[in-house]
């Protein structure tokens, strides 16, 4: 029996390989003046039944969306301000994602153009015209955002996934705590003798 009792923790840790963190995850990115996003359950399932709420910086409700069969949703923004995307399921899973005003800026050329005028012109003939310059800036920012997006999603997914180190660390804490308590108890009973 002692051998079994000693091997049980080992068996349990081997059986339980870390897979994914728990709950729902939401990603959203600015694409021009639209916000494109997706909602997933940890473990890869599409969060079809989730409710997506778009809030402004003050917490006011801008829109309520429902993701499609792939868990994808999109929202047409009206102003380049901070947007908070909240994904919720009925049973209390919840995730948030913030799309900053800076990210949406390029989608609103009128607002960006004002900035460009005050910044002045760069050397070079074709960029002397402020509106052309701001248009080019917007295009570059959109292209870079699109390129970087898969990287960001991957980074987020990696951060959400619990690593083996987390699992072993937690189990170590549990056994250590039990060990400290038992040591403490054992010392107490020896003092009594």
């Amino acid at each position, binding site marked *: 029996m002692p051998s079994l*009792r000693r091997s049980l923790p080992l068996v349990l840790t081997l059986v339980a390989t870390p897979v994914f963190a*728990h709950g729902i995850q939401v990603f959203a990115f600015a694409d021009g003046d639209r916000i494109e996003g997706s909602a997933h359950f940890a473990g890869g399932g599409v969060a079809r*039944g989730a409710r997506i709420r778009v809030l402004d910086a003050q917490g006011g409700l801008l829109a309520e969306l429902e993701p499609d069969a792939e868990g994808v949703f999109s929202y047409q923004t009206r102003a380049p301000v901070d947007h908070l995307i909240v994904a919720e399921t009925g049973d*209390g899973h919840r995730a948030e994602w913030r799309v900053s005003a800076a990210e949406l800026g390029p989608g609103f050329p009128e607002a960006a153009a004002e900035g460009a005028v005050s910044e002045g012109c760069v050397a070079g003939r074709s960029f002397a015209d402020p509106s052309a310059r701001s248009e080019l800036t917007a295009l570059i920012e959109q292209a870079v955002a699109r390129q970087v997006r898969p990287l960001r999603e991957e980074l987020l997914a990696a951060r959400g996934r*619990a690593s083996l180190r987390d699992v072993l660390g937690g189990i170590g804490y*549990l056994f250590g705590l*039990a060990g400290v308590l038992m040591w403490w108890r054992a010392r107490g009973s020896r003092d009594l003798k």
Partner: protein
Amino acid sequence: MAHVPDGVLSTPVLVGGALGSLALLTLSLRRLDYGHLPHAAVLSAAFFVSSLISVPLGPSSVHLLLNGLMGVMLGWTAVPALLVALCLQLVFFGHGGLAALGVNTLNMAIPALLCGLALRPRLARAGPGGMFRIGAAAGGIGVLLTGLLVVLSLVLSDRAFLPAAQVLAVSVLPLALVEALITGTVLSFLARVDPGSVLGEGAGRA
């Protein structure tokens, strides 16, 4: 399902959960059975890890809870064991919210305690088949009751009842079935190979 994150529940529910779990913890620390400490460590380690393996199911994702097993094996010791495991899940995995820790502890510990109080006295008289039935009952009751308590804490926080109840019906019933099978199997296995671990020290040798 059972780890409610921050920002979902209302303040009265959070405060009530924190006070309730504090009271339950004080009560259980007074009745703590130090002979159960090694089992508590193993079971809370299993509980800690089991929440990582979540399976998307219907409009939600589920994972094993194991609180029924903890209740029936540990009795009152299950409360601190659950609390410590929930704290570690919060720190290491980000499961559940810090403010919701009290509510989450209550949602898991109350079913565990009820399983312990209702089913533990029956263990001594149970045969091999009886062990499986007791374990299955503990697993099923643990999951169903936890689901109910989660819905209750959502409803008390002024959230729509219907979606929560629907999700509960779709995702919790299959989980309760699976958990009942697993808990029954684990309990009858442990009772066969190491009766002392299930019935308490001394009973195995008698």
